[in-house]
């Protein structure tokens, strides 16, 4: 079987056996290793990508169900050489430690800010509660989201 999806703005025809998760398709079939996983059972948030505007866990998303959807991954967030405001804020605010959670964390943060441009602290915490940062870098991650929200509010479109 095969499904037609758009990944980071480009159309893809994915040949599938049927059992593959989106995570497997991204990492193994398409060699897009920016998306990570730490549990493969929906407990850590590391594999978060954006599908049709919503943050989802690619490790428990069956690729066969995705015909016609728009998928965004960490590889597609920057505009050419220019980092997305969320990416930029994560670098500037020192929100990156080991970095393994960061692609998922950035995708979850981006989905939040696109839906809710001015989240409260509580809303940020709830939006990210599915994403583990074992380095415990939460304060600086919160700070990055606040900074990115400001920059995105200034009208920069991505």
């Amino acid at each position, binding site marked *: 079987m095969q499904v037609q999806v758009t990944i980071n703005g480009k159309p893809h025809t994915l040949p599938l056996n049927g059992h593959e998760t989106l995570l497997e398709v991204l990492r193994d079939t398409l*060699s*897009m*290793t*920016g*998306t*990570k996983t*730490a*549990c*493969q*059972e929906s*407990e*850590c948030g*590391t594999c978060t990508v954006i599908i049709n505007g919503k943050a989802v866990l690619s490790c428990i998303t069956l690729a066969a169900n995705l015909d016609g959807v728009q998928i965004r*991954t*960490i*590889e597609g*967030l*920057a505009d050419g050489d220019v*980092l997305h405001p969320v*990416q*930029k804020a*994560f*670098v*500037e*605010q*020192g929100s*990156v*430690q*080991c*970095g*393994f*959670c*960061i*692609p998922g964390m*950035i995708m979850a943060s981006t989905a939040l800010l696109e839906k809710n441009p001015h989240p409260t602290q509580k809303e*940020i*915490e*709830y939006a*990210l*509660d*599915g*994403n*583990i*940062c*074992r*380095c*415990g*870098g*939460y*304060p*600086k*991650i*919160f700070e990055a989201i606040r900074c990115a929200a400001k920059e995105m509010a200034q009208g920069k479109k991505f």
Partner: protein
Amino acid sequence: MKTQVLKEYVDPVGKSVPRIDGRGIVTGQTKYAFDVSFPNMLVGKMLRSPHAHAKILSIDTSKAQSLPGVKAIITARDTHLIKFGSNEYFFPHTVDQMALEADKARYIGDEIAAVAAVDEETAYEALKLIDVKYEVLPAVFDIEEAIKPGAPMIHDSLNNMAVILPVNFGNPERVMKEADYVREDKFWCPVAHPAPLEPHVCVGQWETFADKITLWSSSQAPFKCREALAKTLKMDLNNVRVIKMAVGGGFGGKLEMLPMDFAACLLSKKAGSLPVKICCTREEEFISTRRKHGMIYKVKTGVKKDGTILAMTGEVLADGGAYCSYGPTVLAAAMMRIFMVYKIQHFRMTGYRVYTNNPISGAMRGFGGVQSGFAIESHMDMIANHLGMDPVEFRLKNITTPNMVTINKMVLTTNGLRECIEKACSAAGWKEKHGKQKNVCRGIGIGIAADVMGSKMYKSHESAGAIVKVEEDGSVYLFTGAADTGQGSNTALSQITAHELGVSYSRIKCKAGDTEITPFDTGSFASRVTFISGNAAMLGARDAKGQILEIVAKEHHLNVDDLDVKAEQVIFKKDGKVLMSFDKALELCYSFNYGKQIIGRGSYNPKTTPIDFRTGEGNVSGSYGFEAQIAEVEVDKETGQVKVLELWDAHDIGKAINPQSVEAQIEGSLAMGLGYTFYEDLKFKNGLVLNANFAGYRVPRSIGMPRMNTILVETNDPEGPFGAKGMGEASLLPTSAAIANALEDAIGVRIKELPLTADKIIKALKEKEAHL
């Protein structure tokens, strides 16, 4: 010579420059061992014992061999039966683990065989087809049961006490008699797991005709891994290359070679040199990689009425699990950290590192200090409370001071402990709050700690090396053996290099942790990298700079000692006048006449003395870091729920090379400390891990993070690179006690067993009411 105006230049040391790897990480381009892939790469899987203790009678791999897609299977018969361990230098008898066990399985998860196949499904199928006949043996899981006579013997030894460590100074029994108050407490510190987000993962390739092994690894200590691989695979060191990729967290758990690293290489050899990737599942990560030691910590202290500590005695029982790993030195650290914090003249404590049929305990961030931090700092508060003394005053009376030698010969030079306590108290409003918020079930508590920056527990020296190569175009390459596991050491070491060389941070590229290319380094542990590898980087940059200045001096008939490089300019030291730009100087070095390659070399070995483990004497660290932490909590007496309102952490870090990274390390430590205090508790039943996943083993998440205040105390250590000391672990040590102490301040109950769960708090409240 025309004097030029200095260009605008930012000295990177002391600045929160962005992480050198930041842009790669946020775009997903940074490659972890998890991402390493090659054409025709095989998938490897480990066969693990389902029994906690069992004799291996036979292993039949024939059915698995004939499964299509299986490329190699290995058991102990394919190995040299060479044991490995991590404390071989000081405790040779604790080298007790084989990559694939031959005769006996000692815990649920012990590696018995390994398979390489074309894909994961086939590898799992092959594991099922390997027929192992076991004779199940009686097992022991409880520390106190394991040391009783007649307990099942786990190794071929006299008893299950793998290591007995006495630490004896003065005459505590005699002095204890002079005490006005003697208090004895027993604490339980549970088993936690490092649980790095990137699981243990490696790709091994053995090119048999080239006689070369390469391991792409998520190691925290690639040189240590190389040594263990070479030893167990009987290869020369220089035929083994360990390439550390970006590491998705380690926290102590990735310090050692694991059987999977060994297996990936040996499977590759058997599979015609194809690369083999082995990646732990999350369950394997929790079951078979190193965990934090569970400890029973008993301590007894005698004090005078005025709060002066006279003597301390105690006993520590550590659940070691099936093999020794880093256990002996973790145990030593759990006892000897006390000397860095408190002035104690009479001390007797004995540590027992006990074999059980539980998974293997090893290093985890804090290295014994989290357990001792909880026990000692809780105990100190209880003593102060009994004496009616303010816990802060009590501590100030007994803490170590700058420029002193402890009873076990640790040389404390810079020591900002008093300043840390005072600054944390002032920021938290200690005087206004302590003991004054009981009516609203709020309380405030303190914990203090100290930490080393390096420790010779691996071999006789603890050196780090650096090569600083300055290219013709002005780019600077720093080659360091240090292993950045996410703490940002590549950034900090690049900042140090740029500062010493007198050039911009943007010129520096850092290549780290490749045993074939970079100089030797013992690895990322003991909060040592900034201090030890940082000194090496500084010396490497100084050497490179000297080579450049020598040519400038020769060309201009000047004395090289009169010159320096600052802010991208070659200057005269005496008046700061500019002779030429750094780029011009480089042009000269690489000119027709000179053609001189600039390759600086740095090597640093801290001036320390190893511990004599018969007594506990030794100066393990080139300097020491200090720390005070205050927690404010609010308790719901109906539900037993504790809310941490705010944390204050004052840390003597010598000098912050990168304040943002330092803060991040502190905040991360506090988060991990919160986890250990409230919920991180690896649970076992008959040796089986009951919560081997992130649903069952909860780690800190975004909800519930309290406000964290970091206070950096800079004591400018003369031995540290530009005054810097190590940090990264100390802030984790006092968190549990600070919270337990705050809990008592709030509602008057004392919990001596972590984690601080709601049911324990409710139970303690009920018991307290019953006594009223």
